[in-house]
């Protein structure tokens, strides 16, 4: 089923379209949320809620933005709501817990990067995730973050420099 057809059928509440939609985007959105939240449980909850919100608001989707951009924005807003909720009930002072285990599937190089990313701000992690991990272009990233392409360029350069400094301290480049 093509993207356009999926969207039209989603607007009618079609179950098959919902299945296709979730299968198509769950991996992409999971990674986008995971790199910011860095918690599998939070990520999975937010991922489910993102799709439920998408089904609810799809009728308002006019096709002006890319569907990925639209879904990504829903995901990030849902994640922010989740963080607010957790802060409100004092579950976490800092939404990103220090106790979260390193992703089990990572090798040594990736573990260092993972640790380095932890030391970055949410905004820095977000932009690196979009461009370097997910491979979005500057233009796509600018739309997702609702900023100018020039802002993406400069923010990305600063974030990369910060990450490079952090992993340098952990001898990342000596291990290559």
């Amino acid at each position, binding site marked *: 089923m093509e993207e356009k057809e999926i969207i039209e059928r989603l607007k009618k509440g079609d*179950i098959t379209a919902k299945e296709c939609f979730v*299968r198509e985007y769950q991996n992409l959105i999971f990674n986008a949320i995971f790199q910011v939240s860095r918690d599998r449980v939070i990520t999975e909850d937010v991922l489910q809620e993102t799709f439920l919100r998408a089904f609810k608001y799809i009728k308002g989707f006019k096709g002006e933005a890319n569907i990925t951009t639209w879904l990504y924005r829903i995901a990030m807003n849902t994640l922010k709501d989740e963080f607010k909720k957790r802060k409100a009930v004092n579950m976490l002072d800092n939404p990103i817990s220090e106790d979260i285990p390193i992703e089990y599937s990572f090798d040594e190089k990736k573990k260092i990067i993972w640790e380095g990313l932890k030391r970055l701000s949410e905004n820095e992690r977000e932009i690196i995730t979009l461009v370097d991990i997910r491979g979005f272009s500057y233009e796509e990233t600018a739309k997702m973050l609702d900023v100018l392409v020039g802002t993406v360029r400069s923010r990305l350069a600063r974030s*990369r420099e910060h990450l*490079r400094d952090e992993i340098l301290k952990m001898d990342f480049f000596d291990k290559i």
Partner: protein
Amino acid sequence: MMKEKISKYIDGEGNKEELEKLLKEDPESKEYFEQLLLMKSTLSEMNVQSPDVLNKVLEKDKKHKIVFRYRFAFASLLAVAIVSVLFLTFYNFKPQEKGITTPQLRSDTQNPSFGITAVKPEINISIGVRDDEILLSILERHGTITGSSVEGKGNDEFQDELQPEGNATQKVLYYKIVANEISQLVKDIEKIKGATITLPEALPQDDTEAEIIINIYEK
């Protein structure tokens, strides 16, 4: 500035010749460029496999959402009903004579339909219900379903024309009773912890449809 140019360059942007010259002449820039390349290459392999959430999403989508559509008349009737109930309440407690301080009950012979006779008795409401038989059974107890149609095959939504029975007073009160019963439904069902009801920010000024969304939370 040099670092931003290098950052752009590894994404295939910027002036290629200018950067190549810089990398050739400045060993520090060259080292930075190589480090960013390595970093980017490792980052691109850091995708994590998502768990399959399809079944959970579809299950929640089916269970937790009941969508109602109603017409402007519904809101008008509800408003009339509320005003009438308030009027009746205050009327009952109004002292009948000077010097009497205790409230007096109205006589049974009085006409109870204050302000309600203006309501058109033939109004229908249109309610879309998403996969909720319990809710339908409540609606059926207060009115006769006169028409039924399936909206889109493979879709759990359906729509019924509902014609409440009884006289004008009963028709008006019907809407209030339905609202109360929905609240009761939430309390009675063991699996349900609570519910939130979202109304549109403004009621429609014409006869177009508006939406009430009820989210029900399981225990």
